[in-house]
């Protein structure tokens, strides 16, 4: 079947118009569905009196928002670890007898310094996120870098 020039131009114009309308509609729907970008902010979170973490020790603390973090007082000063598994986002828990963190989702294990020692996080060379700890007088604060919804 031969298509004459007029027919070809008409078909092309209709196809281009429909494709443009479809793309416009898709971009509107995509923009509507895609969540707004959050805002990155840093805040300080009170954890505990410094006297509760003597040099050479470490212990988990319940944060005011209900989460937990392990605070350690090492030679290099205070350090805190997030309890969020870097593999797929489950919460790790501290096992005192084994002195390590365990992620119950995919059996990831992290040592007291937060380095993955077995399971999928170790395969990826991951480690628990470290928070910066700020000491003000006898009080320890975590410096959290977070993204919040707007």
């Amino acid at each position, binding site marked *: 079947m031969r298509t004459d020039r007029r027919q070809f131009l008409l078909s092309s114009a209709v196809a281009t118009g429909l494709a443009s309308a479809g793309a416009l509609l898709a971009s509107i729907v995509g923009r509507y569905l*895609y*969540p707004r970008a*959050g805002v990155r902010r840093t805040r300080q979170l009170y954890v505990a009196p410094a006297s509760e973490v003597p040099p050479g020790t470490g212990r988990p603390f319940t944060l005011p*928002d209900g989460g937990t973090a392990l605070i350690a007082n090492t030679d290099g000063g205070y350090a805190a670890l997030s309890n969020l598994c870097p593999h*797929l986002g489950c*919460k790790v*828990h501290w096992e005192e007898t084994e002195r390590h963190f365990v992620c*119950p989702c995919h059996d990831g294990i992290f040592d007291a310094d937060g380095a993955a020692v077995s399971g999928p996080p170790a395969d*990826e060379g991951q480690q628990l996120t470290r928070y910066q700890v700020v000491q003000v007088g006898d009080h320890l604060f975590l410096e959290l870098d977070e993204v919040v*919804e707007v």
Partner: protein
Amino acid sequence: MTMTAGPAVTPESSSWATWLASRVPIDLEALRHFSNEPVPNHLKYWWWCLGGTPALLFGVQAVTGILLTVYYIPDAGSAYESVDRLTTVIPFGWFIRSIHRWASHLMIAAVILHVMRVFFTGAYRAPRELNWMLGVLLLAVTLGFGFTGYSLVWEQLSYWGVTVAANLTDAVPVVGGVMGRMLRGGESVGSNTLTRLFILHIGVMPTLLTLLLAGHILLIRLHGVTEFEFESPDKAPDEAARTYPFFPHHAMTEVIIGVGLAFALTCLAVIFPAELAEKANPLETPAHIKPEWYFFWTFRWLKLTSLTFAVLSIGFAGFLALIWPYIDERLRRRNTASEASVYVGAVAVVVLLVLTIWEAMASS
């Protein structure tokens, strides 16, 4: 099929039939011919009828799902409480929820068995490749139904299942970040996520499944059900000897299967009613957590391999399953007697079974 011949209204037709035929001018005779598909004799046995079973169960899910929606509240602050109220306060709420839950398990099992039957009998081969692809997509949507369904309860498994799924999505190359954010509906799993899962479960997926199912059934009707070679080695010359009519014989088989399913669902719902675990707690992952049985294999795979490899390998396996008819065709072009598909299928089934049983036996 020709639908232009006009309605088949005889002088004896009642006045309402005449009225209807003039308002809906369909050639009923042609419609009757199209819908009354000749069915191969092997379908007289119910175990070859697994294809119709998921469709029947989808009907059960649609009805019970609509009923559950009357009381369910898709909000992170109220979802769990609404399911609790539905289960413990609303008359027969526990029963409807239990039927919905058990039907989902049976539907997934039936689709898996149906896919296996089609695969191992080679029923996906030309000219039915497209229908196989529709079937694989139907399996994916059915699994999606299962995932979004148990996520809506907003118990611990729901929350952590969604968290893992969203982070898994993030790991998909190129588009993962956008898709993960779309699923979460924000920075973290919460109310926005639940609303999206709810819409997927009650709106997007039912529409998708209905369209895929319609296409699947249409192609079955156009190509006919595959006749097995072992059934008639010296094929009877006329179709009538090898088949029987859909109405009323096969329709009756489906009705009997439906009654059997209704009985099984009622027993399961009464003996093992759907329970409610601990409410979602974003601050603590339970020490022992597992997804539903149909995701055990992925859960175990994620424990055995690195995240990137797990995501890529699962995606690649799904893609291979989708285009398998064309791979098989290539193999059979070299060797027409090649039964490589049987070996590949057997290995796949063994691997999936081992991973599933391994995870089922694991203590945590």
